[in-house]
């Protein structure tokens, strides 16, 4: 088995995370990401004594909220925190595939 991911695999992960990577970084991550995956495989070897799924660090059940309205933000305040706005709308570069 290879000790590294392919270049394509690294680029794929980079695309999912929306980050640009340099040629040097790609080479570095090919090895590092593979090590991470191998470590996860090692964890998979643990023999489980029960099949119960753990989804949260607490064992308590969810406590639900009743359907009552709380505080909302003023659109003006929201627009202060976005890179670009237009009136009451948040503006972003055009989204494709819609």
């Amino acid at each position: 088995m290879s000790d590294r991911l392919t270049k394509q695999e690294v680029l794929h992960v980079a695309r999912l995370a929306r980050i640009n990577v340099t040629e040097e970084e790609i080479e570095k991550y090919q090895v590092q990401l593979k090590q991470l995956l191998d470590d996860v495989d090692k964890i998979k070897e643990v023999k489980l004594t029960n099949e119960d799924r753990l989804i949260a660090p607490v064992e308590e059940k969810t406590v639900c909220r009743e359907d009552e309205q709380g505080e909302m933000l003023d659109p003006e305040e929201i627009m202060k925190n976005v890179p670009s706005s237009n009136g009451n709308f948040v503006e972003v570069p055009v989204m494709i595939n819609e």
Partner: protein
Amino acid sequence: MAEYKKTIGIEIHTELKTKTKIYSNSVNGYGKTANSNVNVVDLGYPGTLPTLNMEVIRLALKAALILNCEINRDMHFDRKNYFYPDLPKGYQITQAETPIGVNGYVEIEVNGEKKKIRIHDIHIEEDTCKSIHYKHHSFLDFNRAGVPLVEIVTEADMHSSEEAMAYVEKLRELFLYADISDCKIEEGSMRCDVNISVSKTSELGTRAEIKNIGSISNIGRAIEKEAARQIALIENGKEVEFATYRYDEKQDETVIMRVKEAGNDYRYFPEPDIPFVEIDDELIAEVKKTIPMLAGERRERYVAAGISLLNANKIIQNRNLSNYLNKFLDSGINLVIASNLLLGDISAYLNKMGTELENTKLTDEKFIDLVQKLDKGDINSKVFKDILDDVMEKDTTIDEIIASKGIKIINDPSALKTIISNVLESNSASVTDYKNGNTRAIKFLMGQIMKETKGSANPELVNKLLEEELNK
């Protein structure tokens, strides 16, 4: 040559009728100023955590029960990861592994044949923000972000556009009557995605997904168009591409949106911010109690009471009218007359005034009294029309209204007989026509008598006496 068979599966997203959103307590509302129903959770501000709305669980559970699903008693949520501006968190909180309901069914009827459409699952998730695209920019409105949805996924059990339309109509009717959603396809509170493939053999063809079809009739048209497109491809030796389409109503054709990539990159994993949700017997019993009589049972009861199927369906299309009529199901009054009143003059009045039944002065007692008076012939439909405005707008009883209008119903046979003889005398030509076999002449004579009595005669009684007189 073997025929092509269509195979269709449908995914429906429906917004739930709650006051607040699913994971935050901001308002769930339609048509407000952009970004005015938004809080820090909806925008995914760092450090915020989701809090689950109990009403969402109740409504989704109600939906799952109506769809005859098995309930996942220990359910959780999952993160569907994707990077897109319509969800600022970078993931949608949905249910992948433990949807609230699985293995259900909906019964539909097409051309008199009943059929069960299996439900693969119904799961809970949050809606994304609404985006408007203009030139090189997209404009985002987060009012819809975090609105609670249920997604209902069928098995690929449908084989015609009629079945697909019947399924969507049935689901809409169920959810509308159970008060789960307002199911407005045109406004987007109910959205349908259709998966369709064609094949001549038992092996399924490559399917195409048609997204977000805007009306039930368009579902039928989109299926027919897409099936024809796929058949033409296959007949020409080409392959159907595994892709997503939208239906263009103006062009009446399916337009490609994107080719589907193999496998998914959503990297689902359990949502750690929302621990397990327990659905116990108590909750199920509580929710079951909130399920009202559904459309199917209403239809059966109406038809059994003698109401025509056409009128039964008309009433069911208007939930307010149907709920009103249901108050009298066991009252013993004539439901055919009751339904005719509701669909006819009362609906016309409500439309004219732009109001609803509950805003009028029509009490249950007055309604029963009206129906009984019509049933016994104490008043006729002409009189009913004359008093309708007062019935709807005044606190007085029906008897008081009739008295105040100076209306006297002629129910006395001897008084009527005199009027009838007079009318027959002055219309001897029509009497001769009738005796010569022109049965339509009786209608004319009837009209003359009603005119003479200014519409205050009991029409059934007049009809009976008139026939007796003519056949002497």
